[in-house]
């Protein structure tokens, strides 16, 4: 640890001119990424993840702002002079080179001695489990193998940071999950800073030390996965990460009250938006204890999902027909607590409500 951040973005803006119109792809992003961290950029399509990444790699020059690597301003340094390597969304392997030559490319460009190239490429291919496939061409390999070549090609240079742009996007679910574990293992092994772009929230949650949730060219929240899941900073984050229920209303003396419903928001007054995760909510037909947050509603849908049931409950006390999603574990038996059309009570502990932005 040097105490310096691996990557810093200071109020970075990127504008494109497209058909004579200025498009702001990134509207002012500030980030610090620590040494050795697994950092994810998460957000919907078109929110500016790739653009942000390309500015770190040096393929795009920011319209405004600074890019620093290890404390050094590299805003105007070309990509071949930056000590970071990129794994492209489509891998971008050299189609005319063997696996070995692909992986050795960076070391050759850096004029590394022959015997060292030989040793390091060999070691790297072992790490990504491609020993014995050195002579193959990229097109003779499966998607997962190509992905590992791309990873090896970047990692073999021992960059200060590795940038991965949706590297698992093209893989099927099973391979994806296997590669997630693999990537995490490799990152622990080599101890390099990973910047990981994805629009898959579960991928970001399971793999990252910290996540920046982006929306429309801005970072909405930058925090640990737990923090982002439990304490979303904005309604957008709450909605984007997992299934989340949003309740809005006016709180008086720490209680948001409509009809028989009461949502406890200690210490809050005035207009609030509250989120509560579906798995925190209990569903029942009897009135719950008074210290709980309670809402009443009618079951509109029950979906059996194997390990749990998912209920959609339309609130009877809300005028805009808010629907709350509830997950109930099938811990005891598979029969549902409530059927479609049943009138039910939903309850959860006060600490499981989270007032957005607080």
């Amino acid at each position, binding site marked *: 640890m040097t105490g310096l951040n691996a990557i810093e973005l200071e109020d970075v803006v990127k504008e494109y001119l497209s058909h004579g119109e200025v498009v702001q792809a990134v509207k002012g992003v500030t980030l610090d990424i620590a040494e050795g961290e697994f950092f994810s950029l998460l957000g919907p399509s078109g929110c500016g993840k790739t653009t942000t990444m390309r500015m770190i790699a040096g393929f795009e020059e920011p319209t405004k702002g600074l890019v620093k690597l290890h404390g050094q301003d590299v805003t105007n340094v070309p*990509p071949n002079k930056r000590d970071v390597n990129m794994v*492209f969304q489509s891998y971008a*392997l*050299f189609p*005319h080179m063997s696996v070995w030559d692909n992986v050795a490319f960076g070391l050759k460009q850096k004029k590394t001695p022959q015997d060292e190239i030989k040793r390091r490429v060999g070691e790297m291919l072992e790490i990504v489990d491609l020993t014995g496939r050195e002579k193959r061409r990229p097109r003779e390999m499966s998607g997962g193998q190509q992905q590992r070549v791309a990873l090896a*090609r970047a990692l073999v240079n021992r960059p200060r940071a590795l940038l991965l742009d949706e590297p698992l996007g093209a893989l099927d679910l099973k391979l994806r999950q296997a590669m997630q574990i693999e990537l995490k293992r490799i990152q622990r092994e080599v101890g390099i800073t990973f910047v990981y772009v994805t629009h898959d929230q579960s991928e970001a949650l399971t793999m990252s030390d910290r996540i920046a949730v982006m929306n429309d060219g801005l970072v909405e929240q930058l925090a640990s996965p737990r923090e982002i899941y439990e304490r979303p900073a904005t309604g957008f984050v709450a909605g984007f990460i997992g299934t989340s229920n949003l309740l809005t209303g006016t709180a008086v003396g720490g209680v948001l009250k409509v009809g028989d419903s009461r949502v406890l928001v200690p210490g809050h007054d005035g207009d609030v938006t509250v989120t509560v995760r579906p798995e925190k909510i209990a569903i029942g037909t009897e009135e719950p204890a008074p210290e709980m947050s309670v809402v009443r509603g009618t079951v509109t849908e029950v979906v059996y999902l194997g390990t749990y049931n998912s209920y959609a409950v339309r609130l009877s006390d809300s005028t805009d027909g808010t629907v709350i999603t509830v997950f109930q574990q099938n811990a005891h038996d598979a029969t549902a607590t409530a059927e479609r059309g049943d009138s039910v009570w939903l309850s959860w502990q006060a600490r499981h409500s989270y007032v957005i932005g607080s």
Partner: protein
Amino acid sequence: MKRLTPYLLVLPSWIWLAIFLVVPMAAMASVSLQTGNAIDGFAMTFSFSNYGDALSRYSTQLLRSLLYGGLATVAMMLIGYPVAYWIAFRGGRRKSMYLFLLLLPFFVSFVLRTISWNFLLADNGILFGTLKGWGLLPEGFHVLATTFAVVGGLTYNFLPFMILPIYVALERVDPRVVEAAQDLYATRGAAFRRVVLPLSLPGVFAGVLMTFVPATADPINAAILGGTSNTMIGNIIQTEYLTNLNYPTASALSFTLMAVLLVGIFVYARVLGTENVLEAAAR
């Protein structure tokens, strides 16, 4: 019947080939072995000596054709590659317009285009005449009737056939692959040498085939721009056939040229086979 279907489907193309390629070739092969003259008629004598005679008489022109064709091909490569590169990577939204401009001269007849060069390059024509008038060129300066004029004409006339295949190959190079090279510490020049150039070599290969063969066999440029001392094999064949009515010699020369070109192409493909080219470039 099912098993025959594929063969039936290719039948029309086989008939086409038979009528328009095999039959005329066989006829020409037979003529090339006959003796006689236009007045008394020709008779089949299997005189293979026709080939030896034709070759010994016209070896200068044959070698000159190969030299001019080769020089023009190299010139087209040197001019065509940058043009193709520029259109593919810098053309932006106007790519199709540039390609159209490239093909525009084809709307004018080949002969007419070449004659216009004759006009342009004339010793006292609009270009050199004017420059000589200003005293910028010596009075004796001339370009017409030189090697330069013929090779220049060939280069001009066949250039699009070099550019198009190279363009197609470059167009297919994924820009992200080039970025990947730069990301892996390659300078712009190194990224070009190690990635763009090797990936475009199949296009260059195709371009050379498409230009070298017609340029070597072309009679028009030498006739219009070359004067009397730059005769190429195409002119000889034409003269033997149309003026001297010496069909056997003309046929023998045609076959010789074809054989030389085929052997050349074969050697070229073996030495520079695309796969090998790529292999070498990856080192």
